[in-house]
């Protein structure tokens, strides 16, 4: 139930339609979000001259570390993980395709996306241990099929997270956020039947709510 009186008004002003119910048990805070917070937090940034030299000011409504405009950053976990069937063994000869689902219902229509970065972690299946050479990642809107539509990206190694920018390919730049983003992924190696396993998928979404940003005020003469 919405809190009474002034708390509701303040939450509304903070862009929170209802009181968040609290920290989900199984949700650690991703390091990238801590890093962005410490960079944005004025006291922390001021405390560390390496991050913000004295006299420098943080641009309002700009995410320095990502180099894009924005005043809201969300780290969204894949909802499809729970429903994904166990990976078929690669003996089947055909590497699996995965469907990932991101719930974006919390994004308001007034927010303009400035970055939608897909982040994937793969686990090399036993058959691929020691496999050299690069892989190819394909991403497409679910249901569109992994044909010419969508995004293809070379993945040199499975040891690091794989990042793919969706804005401009899967997601039109000036389109507002859908309520839910469903994608089909596939990761292929040039050696047939060499497959990997999708361990985790997340989306780092940066949006700009212009209503909450001051125009860059010129310093007083």
């Amino acid at each position, binding site marked *: 139930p919405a809190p009474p009186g002034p*708390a509701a008004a303040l939450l509304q002003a*903070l*862009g*929170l339609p*209802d*009181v*968040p*119910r*609290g*920290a*989900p048990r199984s*949700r650690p*805070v*991703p390091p990238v*979000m*801590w890093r*962005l*917070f410490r960079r*944005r*937090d*004025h006291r922390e940034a001021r405390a560390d001259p390496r991050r913000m030299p004295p006299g420098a000011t943080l641009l*309002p*409504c700009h995410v320095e570390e990502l180099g894009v405009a924005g*005043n*809201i*950053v*969300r*780290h*969204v*976990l894949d909802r499809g993980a729970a429903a994904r069937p166990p990976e078929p063994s690669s003996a089947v000869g055909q590497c699996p395709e995965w469907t990932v689902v991101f*719930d974006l*219902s*919390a994004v308001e229509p007034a927010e303009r996306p400035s970055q939608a970065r897909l982040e994937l972690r793969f686990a090399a299946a036993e058959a691929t241990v020691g496999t050299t050479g690069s892989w190819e990642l394909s991403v497409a809107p679910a249901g569109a099929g992994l044909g010419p539509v969508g995004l293809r990206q070379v993945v040199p190694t499975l040891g690091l997270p794989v990042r793919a920018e969706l804005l401009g390919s899967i997601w039109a730049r000036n389109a507002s956020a859908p309520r839910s983003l469903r994608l089909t992924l596939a990761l292929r190696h040039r050696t047939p039947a060499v497959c990997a396993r999708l361990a985790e998928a997340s989306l780092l979404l940066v949006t700009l709510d212009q209503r*909450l*940003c*001051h125009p860059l005020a010129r310093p007083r003469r």
Partner: protein
Amino acid sequence: EAEPPVGGGSVGACRARRLYVSFREVGWHRWVIAPRGFLANYCQGKCALPAVLSEPGGTPALNHAVLRTLMHAAAPGTAGLPCCVPARLSPISVLFFDNSDNVVLRHYEDMVVDECGCR
């Protein structure tokens, strides 16, 4: 926690006073990851002469405020004294969990009072 507002005539000149907002006090600590609170501060103080001319290095007073103070000194029954309000503000960023279990970093302008002035 706030610097106790000073009552009566000895309120002193217009300036920023300490006000710390603890998210635990407002019951938000379960979903706000960081910070635990922040110094919001508030403005209080008289805007009569000479305070309205603001301390050296402070925010220059507006001519209108000085004019009103002079008028008030000459004819107290006319327009009241100028108000002691925020003259420079800073933003804060808040890291929290939303109801979709997303980790969200939001940047809020004008949350901390750095300087006050007579307006």
